[in-house]
């Protein structure tokens, strides 16, 4: 937390100094004004000296005017500093997350990373803003207020010994109850979010299994729980503010009552009594604002810790110090590769060895959860093998610069994701320089030319964030075209044809075979029927290799493969 503040507030040292100086000036002006006021009453009003009233009143007006200017400039700069601080911190988190591998992203969770970059930064930013307005003035106004009150009248200042502890007691009581309640509210809010997120993510399952009622009941429970706790917090504050007001107002009454005796006895001029009143209010206010700031501190510290966690995470996958850049050919080889998730007992992949050569199509099949996607994620180093090696062009991928490695690979993920923009801007993600001819050619191979041509804007047709404004099949084909436009040596298709009908699927495969014949292609497939002609089929079973070979070879030798094929063929016949 202090580290974050020091690092990211450092560049704002000058404006912060300015704000603090202005705050100091304001605090002194605020302490000076009641003294002037006392003076007006003692020497002006009580003696009927109009000239003196005008003169001192003019001075008060002047001081107030300067106070106003100092306050405007101060608030302006404190706002600039805190907003700039927030921007810098968000930038740092963003850069840090960009360097993360899949492992770190999974570790935090995408939602949590977003929260850390928005809500958590906001917490600290608010604290900075408040601190820049309160930090200096609260202690000066409190201590200065006490000193000035003592200067007005010492015995009457004894009241402070009653009022301040009373206020401290009330604040302590409220805080001790409020902080656990705040945490409870946050937990219940998280719970509500969780239920809602599940409802949204699983909307199809919920509908299919007619679980809507059940989900609504779950949501209702979380919602009611949140309401109860929120009510408790709000009712706690319902009693707090009026109590604070009562303490302040009754203090005024007490000061007047006891002050009257002091004035009557001639020990204290009447003007001092009014000044004393103002000092007491200033002290109470300063204490209140300071308390508000301190209430924010624990939350900001928690947020700071969560941000630190992100900033301090060293990505497990880094570029080598002396990268090797072998000649581009497109060969991929797995040598006894193993992968286990951090902290997991059992390896997801064991003893994986096979090779995929230029001009060949290598298919990877296996039941759900057999590790197919994890396996291909090892090639572009989305994960690093925990044992053994993965080689591209005969060099360990860990010895290559990742930019260089990625330039060789065209990756089509399982869930096709498009960025907000246009068709063209999405296709140029792999190669920003790609000309229109290349783009059209890629669309043609990916069987996407027809529907892009049909769009009125053509290549400039808008694509919504995530690609939600095109159908699932179109999204997949655009993602494939994007990989093709990059003209890589190695194509990796992670079950990328799942949303296509059989006809489009067949045409797409034929086009890939024809047009991209020189490249290496690795295809993860669910439907065996579509990879029967692959040069090599790798059968995965429970993280290990059950067999490698052509369809014919495997049908003879590999039981697992036979089971997969038979189950799908009967399945298709039934359908």
């Amino acid at each position, binding site marked *: 937390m202090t580290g974050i503040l020091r690092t990211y507030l450092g560049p704002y040292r000058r404006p912060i100094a300015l704000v603090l100086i202005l705050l100091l000036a304001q605090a002194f002006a*605020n302490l000076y004004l009641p003294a002037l006021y006392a003076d007006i009453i003692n020497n002006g009003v009580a003696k*009927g*000296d109009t000239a003196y009233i005008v003169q001192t009143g003019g001075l008060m007006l002047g001081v107030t005017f300067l106070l106003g200017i100092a306050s405007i400039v101060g608030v302006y700069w404190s706002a600039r500093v805190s907003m700039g601080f927030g921007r810098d911190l968000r930038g740092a988190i963003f850069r840090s997350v960009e360097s993360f591998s899949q492992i770190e992203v999974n570790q*935090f*969770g995408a939602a949590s990373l977003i*929260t850390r970059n*928005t*809500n958590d930064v906001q*917490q600290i930013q*608010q604290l900075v803003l408040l601190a820049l307005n309160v930090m200096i*003035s609260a202690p000066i*106004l409190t201590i200065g207020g006490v000193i000035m009150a003592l200067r007005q009248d010492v015995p009457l200042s004894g009241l402070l010994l009653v009022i301040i502890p009373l206020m401290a007691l009330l604040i302590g009581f409220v805080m001790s109850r*409020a902080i656990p309640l*705040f*945490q409870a*509210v*946050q*937990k219940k*809010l*998280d719970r509500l*979010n969780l239920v*809602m*997120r599940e*409802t*949204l*993510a699983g*909307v*199809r399952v919920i509908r299919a299994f007619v679980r809507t009622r059940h989900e*609504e009941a779950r949501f*209702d429970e979380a*919602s009611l729980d949140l*309401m109860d706790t*929120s009510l408790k*917090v*709000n*009712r706690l504050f*319902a*009693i707090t*503010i*009026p*109590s604070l*007001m009562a303490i302040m*107002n*009754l203090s*005024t*009454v007490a000061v*007047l009552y006891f002050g*009257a005796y002091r*004035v*009557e006895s001639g020990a204290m001029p009447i003007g001092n009594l*009014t000044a004393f009143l*103002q000092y007491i*209010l*200033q002290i109470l*206010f300063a204490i209140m*604002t300071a308390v508000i700031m301190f*209430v*924010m501190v*624990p939350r900001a510290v928690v947020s700071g810790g969560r941000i630190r966690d992100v900033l301090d995470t060293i990505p497990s996958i880094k570029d080598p110090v002396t990268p090797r850049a072998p000649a581009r050919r497109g060969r991929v080889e797995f040598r006894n590769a193993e992968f286990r998730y951090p902290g997991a007992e059992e390896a997801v992949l064991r003893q994986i060895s096979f090779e995929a050569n230029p001009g060949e199509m290598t298919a990877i099949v296996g039941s759900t959860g057999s590790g197919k996607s994890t396996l291909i994620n090892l090639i572009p180093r989305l994960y690093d093998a925990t044992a053994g090696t993965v080689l591209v062009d005969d060099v360990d991928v860990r010895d290559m610069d990742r930019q260089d490695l990625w330039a060789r690979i065209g990756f089509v993920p399982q869930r096709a994701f498009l960025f907000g923009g246009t068709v063209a801007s999405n296709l140029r993600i792999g190669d920003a320089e790609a000309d229109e001819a290349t783009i059209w050619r890629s669309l043609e191979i990916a069987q996407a030319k027809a529907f892009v041509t049909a769009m009125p804007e053509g290549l400039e047709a808008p694509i919504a*964030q995530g690609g939600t404004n095109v159908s699932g099949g179109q999204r997949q084909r655009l993602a494939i075209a994007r990989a093709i436009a990059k003209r890589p040596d190695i194509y990796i298709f992670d079950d990328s044809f799942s949303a296509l009908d059989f006809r489009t699927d067949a045409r797409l495969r034929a086009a890939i075979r024809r047009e991209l014949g020189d490249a290496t292609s690795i295809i993860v497939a669910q439907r065996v029927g579509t990879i029967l002609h692959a040069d090599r089929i790798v059968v995965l079973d429970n993280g290990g290799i059950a067999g490698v070979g052509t369809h014919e070879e495997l049908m003879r030798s590999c039981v697992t493969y036979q089971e997969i094929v038979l189950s799908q063929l009967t399945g298709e016949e039934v359908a």
Partner: protein
Amino acid sequence: MSGPMGARPSGSGANRGPDPGRPGAPGGLASPPPGRRPMGHGGPGMMFMQAPAARSKDFRGSFRRLLGELRPERPLIGAVIVLAIISVAFAVIGPKLLGNATNVLFEGVIGKNLPIGASKDQIVAGLRAQGQDTFAEMLSSMDVTPGVGVDFGALSAILAIVAVVYLLSSVFSWAQTYIMAGVTQRTVYRLRERVDAKLGRLPLAYFDHQSRGDILSRVTNDIDNISQTLQQSLTQLITSVLTVLGVLLVMLTISPLLAVVSLLGPL
């Protein structure tokens, strides 16, 4: 990994400026009620503004709908307004009565320093003769008995009344916020239920074309903002308007001239 603050949807609380009237409430649902009335000279650090959120396309329509959501709570909102009126009335009368107490004190102090035995008129005449016209005028308008000090009986009586008035103001203010908390939380709860029920009825196509984060942030963040507005802004609106009216009224009764001067002052 996730601290007590856990994960929240993106953008939650993104456009909230810090507000000293809200000591560190996590999210809006927990926000305490606003400071009640303008409290003397707001010390430094008390002048924050809420950053403006994205403007609603149809503000009037949305506002009317929001009022519609409050329909079931109408009797209670009526009670809140009545309580607010009473509370503000007491809060506004307090300083006026306190002024009377100061007058008693001031007159006592002045009176004590005047020679015993002489009547007020004699002293005024004497002052005029000496050319101290302003002091003479001030004295003549005051209820002073020369030689007699502060009337502690009267002072105590006034201060006792002021204390009671202030206490009552706080009690009514508490009752008002207490009820409003219930109104707000129940309304927000109903709103969440209705959104959830609606999501259960919407066609699947809606979920395909709407990003999940967006829907999520509507259910949580947007409803959160409504809760804040109801709990904070609505109460504040009622009490602030009433306070301005009340204070104006009291100022005019104390001195129409000073009231006008202080109103024109800022211009």
